């Protein structure tokens, strides 16, 4: 194993987790808005 592999792994995991959570949060918000519009359509 190369020296510093744990730093590299930490960097990639941390970045992936942050961007993943951010993307997921935007997705949740947009889905909630779509549901809301559908409820309005049903009256």
């Amino acid at each position: 194993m190369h020296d510093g592999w744990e730093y590299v792994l930490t960097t990639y995991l941390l970045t992936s987790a942050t961007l993943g959570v951010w993307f997921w949060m935007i997705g949740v918000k947009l889905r909630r808005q779509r549901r809301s519009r559908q409820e309005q359509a049903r009256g």
Partner: protein
Amino acid sequence: MQPVFAPRTSRARVSPRLAAALALTLIPLATVLAFTWAPTNLIGIVDGEPQYDFPQKIFYWHVPIALAAYLCFAAGAWNGLLYLLHGKKDHDIRSYAGVHSGVVFGTLVLITGSIWAKIAWGVWWQWGDRQLLVFLTLYLFYAVYFVLRFSMDAGRTRERASAVFAVLGVALVPLSFMAIRIADTLIHPIVLTTDGNGMTGPMWTTFALAVLGFGALAVSMLQLETAGKLRALRGWCADEDEREATHA
């Protein structure tokens, strides 16, 4: 009754779905290539054992994320300028989304850079490096944007102040990019030079794919966040909390 099938909120030049698909293809591809195809530089031999610059692999994410942050800040400033010229609320929302995305990417730049600095220089932060200081200044400047924006009541005054602030901040982007070239200490590694700075073809190809991937991710984030805020702004969403959060 609120409109259900509302007209398009924007003329997005790039579909957020296409941008997201590009990002989800290119970023994993670049990551795999970084570890399997792009060579790892030999930095010396200790006790007969070759020593490789493995932490340099962080470069394939750190620099593209920094470029994505610059792209978002530039989008925030550009839309701030458009707001000042035309006074449309849409541009205010787009400017806000650009600054917000830029700060998220900027946070990742500082974290990944600090990790790389720790293994490369032995310290988490190097106060003598102008590149780091200018980026930190840029980051803190745009972090203050939120303090300014949310300390004022919603309305034209707040929108104008936010737009002016976003436009002023972008002046730091080229300064940050050039700072490394005018720095005295020359501690920060210069990678983007005309002679390639020792980077081989596979390293450049991998880097280019990562830049495109993170660029696409930034575009996708900007489009999606803007779409959500514009819907809330126009009352197409029944969620009162969300409308409040948008401060329309």
